[in-house]
Structure formats: C-alpha cells, structure tokens
C-alpha cells in the first residue's frame, strides 16, 4: 500500500475528528502535497455538511414518525455514517476512481446535483448499528443516483431491516 492510499483511507476518520494527534500531523503534512487527497477531503467535508443539514430538512424527515427521528438524532454515530456514505460513493454508478476524470465526476455529483444520501439506522439502539452496514443482510444497495431536483436517502427499517430508498423532490414542503 502506498502512503497516499493509506492517507486516503484515514480521511473520513479525520473528517469525523477521530484521528490521533500524531496521525493528524502526518495526514496534514501529506495533504499539503497531494491534490487527490485534498479533493477527496473537500468532498467528504461537503458531504458531511449536507448530511447534517439533511436531518433538519422537513422534506426529508417528514415521512418518519417523530419518535423515530428523535432516536436517529440521538443515536447515530457520525463516523459510521460517513464511512457508509463513502462506500456508496466509491461504489458509484460508473465506479469513478480518483483519476482526474473520476475526480471531476465526483465533484460534479457533489457540487451540482442536488443529492442527499444517507443511511438511517431507523429506531435501532446504537449498539446494533453495525448490523445495518452494507454487505450484510438480504438487500445490498450498491449505488444510488438521483435526477436533478430530487433527493434520495437510504433507510433501514427497524423491524425486518428492509432497505428502503426514499426519494423526495427537492423543495417539497
């Protein structure tokens, strides 16, 4: 594994504020000289902002019972969320890599398509959150792409763990 790859893997942990001080110093030193990692970092930070704002968005939260919403807000570990979203991102529709073209595709997706995507472990206590990671269970969502003007989120139902893609037109409500 090259040092670049190693740093790239720690970016989401960095965004979540969970890296050790020594790792932070190493990563920040690497960032000064690596365009790929800086772009990836900007994407992740942007995405995380979108996700945080999404929780307060009535159009997105409306289909959920208030109790479920409250439990999501109380019990959702952001680290897992970011990791999960990142995986979806990386699994993207055309599997964009961090080549120049891939980076352009990702930047385009993030910046110009109204796009909200998250995993909501609906109404599950935090201890069980790991069980809803992709790759487990019956249904695996590998990629989601919305048309302009729509937002989508990936939900997991509380009882049977069904995967539900919820699509809302942007600006509704």
């Amino acid at each position, binding site marked *: 594994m090259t040092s670049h790859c190693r740093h790239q893997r720690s970016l989401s942990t960095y965004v979540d504020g969970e890296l050790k001080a020594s790792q932070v110093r190493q990563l920040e030193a690497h960032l000064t000289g690596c365009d790929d990692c800086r772009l990836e970092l900007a994407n992740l930070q942007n995405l995380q902002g979108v996700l945080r704002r999404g929780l307060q968005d009535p159009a997105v939260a*409306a*289909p*959920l*019972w*208030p109790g*479920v919403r409250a439990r999501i807000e109380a019990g959702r570990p952001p680290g897992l969320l970011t990791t999960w979203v990142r995986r979806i991102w990386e699994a993207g*529709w055309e599997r964009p890599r961090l080549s120049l073209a891939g980076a352009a595709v990702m930047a385009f997706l993030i910046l110009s398509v109204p796009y909200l995507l998250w995993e909501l472990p*609906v*109404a599950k206590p935090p201890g069980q959150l790991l069980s809803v990671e992709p790759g487990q*269970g*019956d*249904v*695996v*969502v*590998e*990629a*989601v*792409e*919305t*048309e302009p*003007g*729509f937002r*989508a989120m990936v*939900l997991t*139902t*509380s*009882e*049977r*763990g*069904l*995967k*539900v*893609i*919820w*699509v*809302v*037109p942007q600006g*509704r409500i």
Partner: protein
Amino acid sequence: MKRALLTAFVFLLLPLSSVYAQTVPLEVWVIGASREPGGRIDPEILSLVQDFKRDFAYTSFELLQKRTGQVDQQRPFRTPIPGGRDLNVALVGADQKRVELKVTTSGVKTRVRIHRGGSPFVVGGPAYRDGVLIIAIFAR
C-alpha cells in the same frame, strides 16, 4: 499456462455473469400510503407493511397494483405505475441465490443486490394522491 490462467479467469467471472445469467421472475407491489384517519391496511400486504407502519408516518396502506414479470440480460422489465410513471428493472447479474438489478423510477436510479425468494427491495416517496407510493420489488 496461458490456457490455465484464462480458464481460471473465466471461472472467476462466472458467478456474476452470463453462464448463470438467466431469466429471473420478478414480482412488484405498488402500495399507496397515506395519513387517512382510521388507518386501513390491505390484508395481503400486512406483513410487509408492519415495518413501514412502525417507522413511517403513514397510517393507511393500499395495494394499488401487483405485477409479475421476468427479466433477463437482454430484456428489462418495464411497467407503468400509478401517477403516470414507469418502473424499469434491468438485470445486471444473477446466480442461484442472488440477483443484481438496476432499478429506475421517477427521480432515482439505483443498483441493488437482493436474494431470490428473500426480502424485497423498496423504493418509496413519489407523491400519489394525498400520500406517497411505496414500491416493493421481489426476485423469485
């Protein structure tokens, strides 16, 4: 040596691709969910809907449409759904247990893997009358 490598390569690719690719029977349920007081639920969809009732702020669930069809790598499954939209399901790959599908409907395009005879993949949210549509796709 070259041939051995080629054979190994082909076998590695097999599980997800054409040799096992086959015709996959699909079943699609289109459910209308609303907040009508009184909360009516079609008995046929009761077990599926229990989950939605618990998590989603809808009280009434009506089975609007039930379609069966099949999909293979040449022919996607396409059906009109209430509200003047289309649902398109294309087969990406399949083996005996699982299928990988590309599902396209109003506003969203997604790629999923589901178990044959297992839980459905669900898309919800398109507005319909006073509520929304919930579409469940089963692979048989």
